[in-house]
């Protein structure tokens, strides 16, 4: 099966259809607006010990959970690419790495802002969870660098898939970081109560919708780029034939 066989849905003119992506993106934005409304009106304004700075956790924790879900999907897509050699899995893996990197960056930034409020410094190297999430960010930047460095289109998806599987080794490390590497300065639980749990769960759904919309956008954009490159290659071939 070729890349063209598995391309996203197209319009009558052959251009990749943007409709499903736009609906997805608008739905995700509506969910994020609803999350903001819940955070500002529904949940307690402050909790004991850390005050109102805990509110950033409604963005930090869902982003962190969604980051691992996205990278987990990258691992699955990489395995499926190696098994099936279907280019769609490679494109999906690359799109979800882009979305995962954004989610990872949001996790790091919101975590850093919270650390400043709670610990009075932007970064704490002794915190194994914070550090392991930063390592994960570096790993997937490496994934992007690998894709950019390999020119051979036969090798590139294979190498990316192999690294996509290897990089997933860090997911359980992030989960178990505090248990394995000591010092538990990272909060395991902030606040209790049904409204907090419900908003947290809603946040995970909203951010999952948002980041998968980003992945869809990347997939859509890559589809257009591949078509443009294929068209340019055809033009070059015609020019060479007529020269």
């Amino acid at each position, binding site marked *: 099966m070729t890349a063209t066989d598995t391309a996203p849905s197209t319009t009558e003119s052959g251009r990749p259809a943007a409709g499903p992506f736009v609906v997805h993106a608008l739905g995700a934005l509506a969910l994020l607006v609803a999350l903001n409304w819940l955070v500002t009106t529904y949940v307690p304004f402050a909790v004991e010990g850390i005050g109102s700075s805990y509110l950033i956790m409604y963005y930090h924790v869902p982003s962190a959970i969604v980051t691992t879900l996205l990278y987990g999907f990258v691992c699955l897509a990489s395995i499926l690419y*190696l098994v099936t050699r279907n280019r769609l899995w490679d494109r999906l893996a690359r799109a979800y790495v882009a979305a995962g990197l954004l989610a990872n960056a949001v996790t790091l930034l919101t975590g850093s802002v919270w650390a400043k409020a709670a610990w009075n410094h932007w970064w704490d190297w002794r915190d194994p969870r914070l550090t*392991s999430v930063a*390592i994960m960010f*570096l*790993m997937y*930047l*490496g994934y992007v*660098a*690998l894709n950019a*460095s*390999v*020119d051979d289109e*036969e*090798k590139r998806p*294979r*190498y990316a*898939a*192999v*690294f996509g*599987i*290897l*990089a997933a*080794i*860090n997911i359980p*490390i992030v989960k178990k970081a505090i248990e*394995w*590497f000591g010092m538990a300065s990272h909060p395991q639980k902030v606040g209790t109560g049904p409204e907090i749990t419900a908003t947290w769960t809603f946040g995970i759904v909203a951010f999952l919708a948002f980041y998968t919309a980003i992945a869809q956008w990347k997939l859509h954009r890559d589809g257009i780029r591949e078509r443009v490159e294929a068209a340019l290659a055809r033009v070059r071939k015609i020019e060479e034939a007529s020269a």
Partner: protein
Amino acid sequence: MTQPRLFGALVRWDVIRELRRWNSLVPMALIAFVTLFVFAFAVDPTRIELQRSRGGILWATLLLAASVGVDRAFRGDGDGRLLEALLVAPVNRATLYHARVCSTFLFVLAMAAAVVPAFFVLYDQSVGVEGALWIGACAALALFGFVAVGVLLSAMTWSVRGGDVLLRVLLFPILLPAFAAAVDLTSRVLDGREADSRALLLLLAFDLTFLGAGHLLFEHVVKDLGPQG
């Protein structure tokens, strides 16, 4: 010839080739000694603050040097014809991977055997027999994991544009958790604190994971080379 015999032959061939050309050991040892000197000027070894960072200095030195050896695992094969020739031979790709891991590990271990005593002399450190055994076990396990994943990544990056830099960009983040465990254990031993065997178990888990991943994934990396490609 059976796969275990082929494995032995490949390792023996790698060792003989290395002893003739000194393609890995000498660059690794040179980088290691230069790094030890750089650290000596970066952090004054006579100051008491060094006590906290000496485990990190030793491991940063070993990792930088070992990355040169791992980079040479396939780059030493010149234009890649040698690797292609190996893949034409009736040798299982997993056997080829394990042989490369074994020979590279031997070279890295030989480098560490020269560098660790030099570190103790240059930085005026001392440990007892038990401490030396802890550090030895930690070095063997951490470097094995390093080589197991490094050889797999080296097979991908040796022919790629800017592959030497890319190898380190991919390799170091993957190894940082194992590196942290090794630094922690080494620092404990050097400080005279009680060593924690959990760190060794963690390193062993990393080794088995990386070796298993390499065993399964290596054939996908070299798929386009050789008759099965």
